[in-house]
């Protein structure tokens, strides 16, 4: 099973992607998924830089490990790059499996890795000031708990 991985420079519809991903998959009773949205509030915009080719390859490598570990029948990861404003979709991860516990685990582990270690460089705008962001201590703790291999 090869994961489907894409980094998109433009907005995408999580629901349309999910529909296409699940179509005809009655081999798997369980589809867990996660959608990340840009939160409103203090942050007026954010920008994600990626390294085309390298970023996708790294995501696919980790996604493959996770899929194998949890007997996943299908794994999807679509990540936005570029400049986004509140309400836009940043990320969609979905996993198909015969059993829901495995599907949940795969989505959570891939999300934890994406949020801390994926090759993205993030900048946020607050009050007109831009600042580069690094992973939080909580992110690292979650990762350690899952014992996920990292780059």
């Amino acid at each position: 099973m090869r994961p489907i991985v894409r980094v998109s420079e433009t907005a995408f519809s999580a629901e349309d992607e999910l529909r296409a991903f699940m179509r005809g998959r009655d081999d798997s009773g369980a589809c867990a998924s996660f959608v990340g949205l840009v939160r409103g509030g203090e942050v007026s915009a954010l920008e994600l830089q990626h390294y085309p080719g390298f970023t996708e390859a790294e995501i696919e490598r980790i996604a493959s490990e996770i899929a194998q570990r949890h007997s996943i029948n299908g794994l999807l990861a679509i990540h936005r790059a570029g400049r986004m404003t509140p309400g836009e979709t940043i990320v969609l991860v979905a996993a198909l499996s015969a059993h829901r516990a495995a599907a949940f685990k795969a989505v959570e582990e891939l999300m934890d890795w994406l949020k801390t270690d994926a090759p993205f460089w993030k900048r946020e705008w607050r009050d007109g000031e831009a600042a580069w962001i690094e992973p939080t201590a909580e992110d690292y703790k979650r990762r350690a708990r899952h014992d996920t291999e990292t780059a």
Partner: protein
Amino acid sequence: MRILFFGRLRDLAGSSEVQAPDTFETLADLRRWLAETHAGLEQALAQRGVRVAIDKAIVGNGDVSLRSAKEVAFMPPMSGG
């Protein structure tokens, strides 16, 4: 050879990509050339956590051959998505 910068390093370099001569033998040679041509980048490139990829493969800390390299990327700590 293409030299790529990301995140903070891109700001310091003033662009996402520069073209460098193909004549450098090692990464150290390239670093010296970048220090001369891009003021302020030398220190930033040497900082802890900055990683280097040659032709999209991460390389270790020591000096590395650039023979037949087409693309060198300088990456500050990844923030995740």
